[in-house]
Protein backbone atom coordinates (compact mmCIF):
# COMPACT_ATOMS: atom_id res chain seq x y z
CA UNK A 1 0.00 0.00 0.00
CA UNK A 2 1.28 3.42 -0.97
CA UNK A 3 1.93 6.04 1.71
CA UNK A 4 1.65 8.93 -0.71
CA UNK A 5 -0.63 10.27 -3.38
CA UNK A 6 0.31 11.96 -6.66
CA UNK A 7 -2.24 14.40 -8.04
CA UNK A 8 -2.63 17.42 -10.29
CA UNK A 9 -1.88 20.67 -8.43
CA UNK A 10 -4.82 22.92 -7.59
CA UNK A 11 -4.92 26.70 -6.92
CA UNK A 12 -4.82 26.05 -3.17
CA UNK A 13 -1.39 24.40 -3.58
CA UNK A 14 0.50 27.52 -4.75
CA UNK A 15 1.89 28.36 -1.33
CA UNK A 16 3.28 24.82 -0.92
CA UNK A 17 4.63 24.90 -4.49
CA UNK A 18 6.48 28.17 -3.81
CA UNK A 19 7.89 26.78 -0.57
CA UNK A 20 9.22 23.71 -2.43
CA UNK A 21 10.57 25.88 -5.29
CA UNK A 22 12.60 27.83 -2.74
CA UNK A 23 13.87 24.64 -1.10
CA UNK A 24 15.05 23.32 -4.47
CA UNK A 25 16.68 26.67 -5.34
CA UNK A 26 18.52 26.53 -2.00
CA UNK A 27 19.79 23.04 -2.90
CA UNK A 28 20.92 24.40 -6.31
CA UNK A 29 22.75 27.17 -4.43
CA UNK A 30 20.64 29.88 -6.08
CA UNK A 31 18.02 30.71 -3.45
CA UNK A 32 18.29 34.49 -3.92
CA UNK A 33 17.30 34.13 -7.58
CA UNK A 34 13.69 33.15 -6.75
CA UNK A 35 11.64 36.29 -7.27
CA UNK A 36 8.39 34.59 -8.27
CA UNK A 37 5.40 35.23 -5.97
CA UNK A 38 2.32 33.15 -5.05
CA UNK A 39 0.15 35.62 -6.97
CA UNK A 40 2.18 35.08 -10.18
CA UNK A 41 2.16 31.31 -9.71
CA UNK A 42 -1.61 31.41 -9.34
CA UNK A 43 -2.18 33.63 -12.37
CA UNK A 44 0.35 31.84 -14.56
CA UNK A 45 -0.71 28.30 -13.69
CA UNK A 46 -4.44 28.54 -13.18
CA UNK A 47 -5.51 31.47 -15.36
CA UNK A 48 -6.79 31.60 -18.96
CA UNK A 49 -3.43 30.74 -20.47
CA UNK A 50 -1.50 28.37 -18.22
CA UNK A 51 2.26 28.69 -18.66
CA UNK A 52 2.91 25.51 -16.70
CA UNK A 53 1.36 22.30 -15.33
CA UNK A 54 2.15 20.85 -11.95
CA UNK A 55 1.91 17.50 -10.16
CA UNK A 56 2.22 17.35 -6.36
CA UNK A 57 3.02 14.51 -3.96
CA UNK A 58 0.97 14.46 -0.78
CA UNK A 59 1.25 12.31 2.35
CA UNK A 60 -1.50 11.61 4.91
CA UNK A 61 -1.71 13.91 7.98
CA UNK A 62 -0.17 11.33 10.26
CA UNK A 63 2.90 11.18 7.98
CA UNK A 64 3.39 14.97 7.68
CA UNK A 65 6.90 16.50 7.55
CA UNK A 66 8.70 17.55 10.71
CA UNK A 67 7.49 21.12 10.14
CA UNK A 68 3.89 20.08 9.54
CA UNK A 69 3.52 19.89 5.74
CA UNK A 70 1.59 17.23 3.81
CA UNK A 71 2.57 18.43 0.31
CA UNK A 72 6.12 17.12 0.19
CA UNK A 73 7.11 16.98 -3.47
CA UNK A 74 6.27 18.47 -6.85
CA UNK A 75 7.10 18.51 -10.51
CA UNK A 76 6.43 21.41 -12.84
CA UNK A 77 6.34 20.90 -16.60
CA UNK A 78 5.10 22.46 -19.83
CA UNK A 79 5.01 21.63 -23.51
CA UNK A 80 7.71 22.84 -25.87
CA UNK A 81 8.36 22.27 -29.58
CA UNK A 82 11.22 20.79 -31.52
CA UNK A 83 10.98 21.60 -35.24
CA UNK A 84 12.57 18.22 -36.01
CA UNK A 85 10.33 15.95 -33.93
CA UNK A 86 7.36 18.04 -32.78
CA UNK A 87 5.87 18.30 -29.28
CA UNK A 88 8.04 17.72 -26.24
CA UNK A 89 7.33 17.62 -22.54
CA UNK A 90 9.77 19.87 -20.72
CA UNK A 91 10.41 19.14 -17.06
CA UNK A 92 11.18 22.46 -15.38
CA UNK A 93 11.42 21.54 -11.69
CA UNK A 94 11.32 18.23 -9.88
CA UNK A 95 11.79 17.99 -6.12
CA UNK A 96 10.99 15.75 -3.13
CA UNK A 97 11.70 16.98 0.43
CA UNK A 98 14.81 15.34 1.87
CA UNK A 99 13.04 13.44 4.65
CA UNK A 100 10.74 11.76 2.09
CA UNK A 101 13.38 10.53 -0.32
CA UNK A 102 14.20 6.88 -0.87
CA UNK A 103 10.60 5.64 -0.84
CA UNK A 104 9.92 5.79 -4.57
CA UNK A 105 8.11 9.14 -4.70
CA UNK A 106 10.54 10.74 -7.17
CA UNK A 107 10.57 7.60 -9.24
CA UNK A 108 6.76 7.53 -9.45
CA UNK A 109 6.58 11.24 -10.31
CA UNK A 110 8.94 10.64 -13.25
CA UNK A 111 6.84 7.68 -14.42
CA UNK A 112 3.60 9.70 -14.26
CA UNK A 113 5.20 12.49 -16.29
CA UNK A 114 6.51 9.98 -18.84
CA UNK A 115 3.02 8.56 -19.17
CA UNK A 116 1.65 12.09 -19.68
CA UNK A 117 4.30 12.67 -22.36
CA UNK A 118 3.35 9.51 -24.23
CA UNK A 119 -0.41 10.17 -23.92
CA UNK A 120 -0.05 13.73 -25.25
CA UNK A 121 1.96 12.61 -28.28
CA UNK A 122 5.31 13.96 -27.10
CA UNK A 123 8.34 12.22 -28.61
CA UNK A 124 10.59 13.10 -25.77
CA UNK A 125 10.91 14.54 -22.27
CA UNK A 126 13.65 17.19 -21.91
CA UNK A 127 15.13 18.96 -18.90
CA UNK A 128 18.35 20.51 -17.64
CA UNK A 129 20.53 19.45 -14.75
CA UNK A 130 23.55 21.18 -13.22
CA UNK A 131 26.69 19.19 -14.02
CA UNK A 132 27.83 19.13 -10.37
CA UNK A 133 24.51 17.57 -9.28
CA UNK A 134 25.81 14.00 -9.42
CA UNK A 135 22.93 12.29 -7.48
CA UNK A 136 20.35 13.75 -9.90
CA UNK A 137 22.39 12.98 -13.01
CA UNK A 138 22.79 9.37 -11.84
CA UNK A 139 19.05 9.14 -11.04
CA UNK A 140 18.22 10.17 -14.62
CA UNK A 141 20.97 8.18 -16.38
CA UNK A 142 19.97 4.97 -14.52
CA UNK A 143 16.58 5.41 -16.16
CA UNK A 144 17.99 5.86 -19.66
CA UNK A 145 18.47 9.63 -20.01
CA UNK A 146 21.09 10.90 -22.48
CA UNK A 147 23.17 14.03 -21.90
CA UNK A 148 22.75 16.14 -25.06
CA UNK A 149 25.30 18.71 -23.92
CA UNK A 150 27.98 16.00 -23.76
CA UNK A 151 26.80 13.98 -26.77
CA UNK A 152 25.92 16.78 -29.20
CA UNK A 153 27.54 19.94 -27.76
CA UNK A 154 24.41 21.95 -26.90
CA UNK A 155 24.95 24.93 -24.58
CA UNK A 156 22.21 26.93 -22.84
CA UNK A 157 22.26 30.70 -23.32
CA UNK A 158 20.09 33.40 -21.77
CA UNK A 159 19.47 37.06 -22.56
CA UNK A 160 18.08 39.04 -19.63
CA UNK A 161 15.38 41.71 -19.74
CA UNK A 162 17.58 44.81 -20.01
CA UNK A 163 19.35 43.39 -23.07
CA UNK A 164 16.01 42.22 -24.51
CA UNK A 165 14.78 45.81 -24.32
CA UNK A 166 17.87 46.99 -26.20
CA UNK A 167 17.39 44.33 -28.90
CA UNK A 168 13.69 45.09 -29.33
CA UNK A 169 14.15 48.86 -29.67
CA UNK A 170 13.78 50.12 -33.22
Amino acid at each position, binding site marked *: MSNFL*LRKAEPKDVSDILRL*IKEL*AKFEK*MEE*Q*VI*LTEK*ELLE*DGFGDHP*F*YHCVVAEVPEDKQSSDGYTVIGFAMYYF*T*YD*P*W*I*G*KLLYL*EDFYVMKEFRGSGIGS*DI*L*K*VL*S*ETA*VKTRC*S*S*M*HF*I*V*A*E*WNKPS*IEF*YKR*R*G*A*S*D*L*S*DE*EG*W*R*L*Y*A*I*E*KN*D*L*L*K*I*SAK
Partner: protein
Amino acid sequence: MNFKVRAARKEDCKDISRMIMELAVYEKMPDQVKISHEELERDGFSPNPFYECLIAEVPDEHKTKDGYTIVGYVLYFYTYSTWKGRSVYMEDLYVMPDFRGKGIGKGLMAKVAQVGVEKQCVRLQLSVLDWNKPSLDFYVAKGAEDLTAKEGWHFLRFDGQSLDTLAKEAPKD
Protein backbone atom coordinates in the same frame (compact mmCIF):
# COMPACT_ATOMS: atom_id res chain seq x y z
CA MET B 1 17.65 45.06 -49.34
CA ASN B 2 14.01 45.46 -48.34
CA PHE B 3 12.57 42.71 -46.24
CA LYS B 4 9.46 42.26 -44.12
CA VAL B 5 9.08 40.34 -40.87
CA ARG B 6 5.56 39.03 -40.27
CA ALA B 7 3.71 36.33 -38.34
CA ALA B 8 3.74 33.00 -40.19
CA ARG B 9 0.46 31.74 -41.69
CA LYS B 10 -0.59 28.13 -42.10
CA GLU B 11 0.29 28.22 -45.79
CA ASP B 12 3.89 29.21 -44.94
CA CYS B 13 4.57 25.82 -43.32
CA LYS B 14 6.01 24.31 -46.51
CA ASP B 15 8.60 27.11 -46.65
CA ILE B 16 9.29 26.78 -42.91
CA SER B 17 9.75 23.03 -43.31
CA ARG B 18 12.20 23.64 -46.18
CA MET B 19 14.26 26.02 -44.03
CA ILE B 20 14.12 23.73 -40.97
CA MET B 21 15.83 21.09 -43.11
CA GLU B 22 18.42 23.63 -44.34
CA LEU B 23 19.23 24.54 -40.73
CA ALA B 24 19.45 20.85 -39.74
CA VAL B 25 21.93 20.29 -42.60
CA TYR B 26 24.01 23.23 -41.30
CA GLU B 27 23.90 21.70 -37.79
CA LYS B 28 25.11 18.39 -39.33
CA MET B 29 21.97 16.47 -38.21
CA PRO B 30 19.60 16.25 -41.25
CA ASP B 31 18.60 12.64 -40.49
CA GLN B 32 17.11 13.82 -37.20
CA VAL B 33 14.28 15.76 -38.89
CA LYS B 34 11.24 13.52 -38.54
CA ILE B 35 8.29 15.86 -39.05
CA SER B 36 6.95 17.56 -42.17
CA HIS B 37 4.90 20.67 -42.92
CA GLU B 38 1.74 18.73 -41.99
CA GLU B 39 2.72 18.40 -38.33
CA LEU B 40 3.87 22.04 -38.32
CA GLU B 41 0.44 23.07 -39.61
CA ARG B 42 -1.38 20.99 -37.01
CA ASP B 43 0.81 22.02 -34.07
CA GLY B 44 1.20 25.74 -34.83
CA PHE B 45 -2.19 26.70 -36.19
CA SER B 46 -4.75 24.97 -33.99
CA PRO B 47 -6.70 26.64 -31.13
CA ASN B 48 -3.91 25.62 -28.73
CA PRO B 49 -0.64 26.24 -30.64
CA PHE B 50 2.61 24.74 -29.34
CA TYR B 51 4.84 27.34 -30.97
CA GLU B 52 4.78 30.73 -32.68
CA CYS B 53 6.69 31.58 -35.82
CA LEU B 54 7.75 34.74 -37.64
CA ILE B 55 9.06 34.72 -41.18
CA ALA B 56 11.22 37.12 -43.20
CA GLU B 57 10.03 37.81 -46.71
CA VAL B 58 11.76 39.66 -49.60
CA PRO B 59 10.08 41.26 -52.62
CA ASP B 60 9.72 39.20 -55.79
CA GLU B 61 12.67 40.88 -57.54
CA HIS B 62 15.00 39.54 -54.79
CA LYS B 63 13.68 35.98 -54.74
CA THR B 64 16.13 33.05 -54.48
CA LYS B 65 17.35 31.18 -57.56
CA ASP B 66 14.74 28.51 -56.76
CA GLY B 67 12.03 31.16 -56.67
CA TYR B 68 11.47 31.55 -52.92
CA THR B 69 10.58 34.88 -51.31
CA ILE B 70 10.51 33.53 -47.75
CA VAL B 71 14.17 33.59 -46.74
CA GLY B 72 14.28 33.32 -42.95
CA TYR B 73 12.28 32.31 -39.90
CA VAL B 74 12.30 32.30 -36.13
CA LEU B 75 10.34 29.70 -34.13
CA TYR B 76 9.75 30.28 -30.43
CA PHE B 77 7.45 29.40 -27.52
CA TYR B 78 6.79 30.40 -23.93
CA THR B 79 8.41 28.65 -21.02
CA TYR B 80 8.29 29.13 -17.27
CA SER B 81 11.02 29.61 -14.75
CA THR B 82 10.11 28.75 -11.19
CA TRP B 83 12.54 31.46 -10.10
CA LYS B 84 11.46 34.33 -12.32
CA GLY B 85 8.24 33.44 -14.11
CA ARG B 86 7.42 33.83 -17.79
CA SER B 87 10.21 33.38 -20.31
CA VAL B 88 10.42 33.07 -24.07
CA TYR B 89 12.51 30.34 -25.67
CA MET B 90 13.89 30.90 -29.13
CA GLU B 91 14.07 27.43 -30.62
CA ASP B 92 15.23 28.13 -34.20
CA LEU B 93 16.57 31.26 -35.91
CA TYR B 94 17.63 30.90 -39.53
CA VAL B 95 18.37 33.07 -42.56
CA MET B 96 19.29 31.52 -45.92
CA PRO B 97 23.04 31.96 -46.63
CA ASP B 98 22.56 34.33 -49.61
CA PHE B 99 20.51 36.69 -47.45
CA ARG B 100 22.81 37.03 -44.49
CA GLY B 101 24.60 40.21 -43.51
CA LYS B 102 21.55 42.38 -44.33
CA GLY B 103 20.05 42.66 -40.86
CA ILE B 104 17.37 39.98 -41.38
CA GLY B 105 18.50 37.77 -38.47
CA LYS B 106 18.71 40.83 -36.26
CA GLY B 107 15.22 41.90 -37.42
CA LEU B 108 13.69 38.49 -36.67
CA MET B 109 15.27 38.37 -33.24
CA ALA B 110 14.24 41.96 -32.44
CA LYS B 111 10.63 41.03 -33.13
CA VAL B 112 10.80 38.00 -30.79
CA ALA B 113 12.38 40.18 -28.10
CA GLN B 114 9.54 42.69 -28.57
CA VAL B 115 6.89 39.97 -28.28
CA GLY B 116 8.62 38.66 -25.16
CA VAL B 117 8.69 42.08 -23.51
CA GLU B 118 5.00 42.66 -24.40
CA LYS B 119 4.07 39.33 -22.78
CA GLN B 120 6.02 40.31 -19.64
CA CYS B 121 8.73 37.72 -20.13
CA VAL B 122 11.77 38.22 -17.93
CA ARG B 123 14.26 36.69 -20.34
CA LEU B 124 14.86 34.94 -23.61
CA GLN B 125 16.66 31.59 -23.67
CA LEU B 126 18.14 29.59 -26.50
CA SER B 127 20.65 26.84 -27.06
CA VAL B 128 23.62 26.86 -29.42
CA LEU B 129 26.05 24.12 -30.48
CA ASP B 130 29.50 24.65 -28.99
CA TRP B 131 31.27 24.62 -32.39
CA ASN B 132 28.88 27.16 -33.97
CA LYS B 133 31.18 30.18 -33.64
CA PRO B 134 29.30 32.60 -35.96
CA SER B 135 26.09 32.07 -33.99
CA LEU B 136 27.81 32.20 -30.60
CA ASP B 137 29.38 35.55 -31.58
CA PHE B 138 26.04 36.90 -32.88
CA TYR B 139 24.22 36.11 -29.61
CA VAL B 140 27.00 37.13 -27.23
CA ALA B 141 27.16 40.52 -28.99
CA LYS B 142 23.49 40.97 -28.03
CA GLY B 143 24.10 40.21 -24.37
CA ALA B 144 23.62 36.42 -24.29
CA GLU B 145 25.36 34.61 -21.48
CA ASP B 146 26.54 31.01 -21.63
CA LEU B 147 24.75 29.37 -18.69
CA THR B 148 26.30 25.99 -19.45
CA ALA B 149 29.73 27.52 -18.81
CA LYS B 150 28.63 29.85 -16.00
CA GLU B 151 26.29 27.59 -14.02
CA GLY B 152 27.01 24.11 -15.38
CA TRP B 153 23.63 23.39 -16.96
CA HIS B 154 23.41 20.34 -19.24
CA PHE B 155 20.50 19.31 -21.45
CA LEU B 156 19.17 15.83 -20.77
CA ARG B 157 16.51 13.81 -22.57
CA PHE B 158 14.35 10.69 -22.22
CA ASP B 159 13.08 9.46 -25.57
CA GLY B 160 12.19 6.33 -27.49
CA GLN B 161 12.68 3.20 -25.43
CA SER B 162 13.65 4.93 -22.17
CA LEU B 163 10.49 7.10 -22.27
CA ASP B 164 8.22 4.14 -23.11
CA THR B 165 9.70 2.01 -20.33
CA LEU B 166 9.11 4.73 -17.72
CA ALA B 167 5.58 5.37 -19.00
CA LYS B 168 4.62 1.70 -18.75
CA GLU B 169 5.66 1.61 -15.09
CA ALA B 170 3.50 4.60 -14.07
CA PRO B 171 1.31 3.86 -11.02
CA LYS B 172 -2.36 3.41 -11.86
CA ASP B 173 -4.90 5.90 -10.43
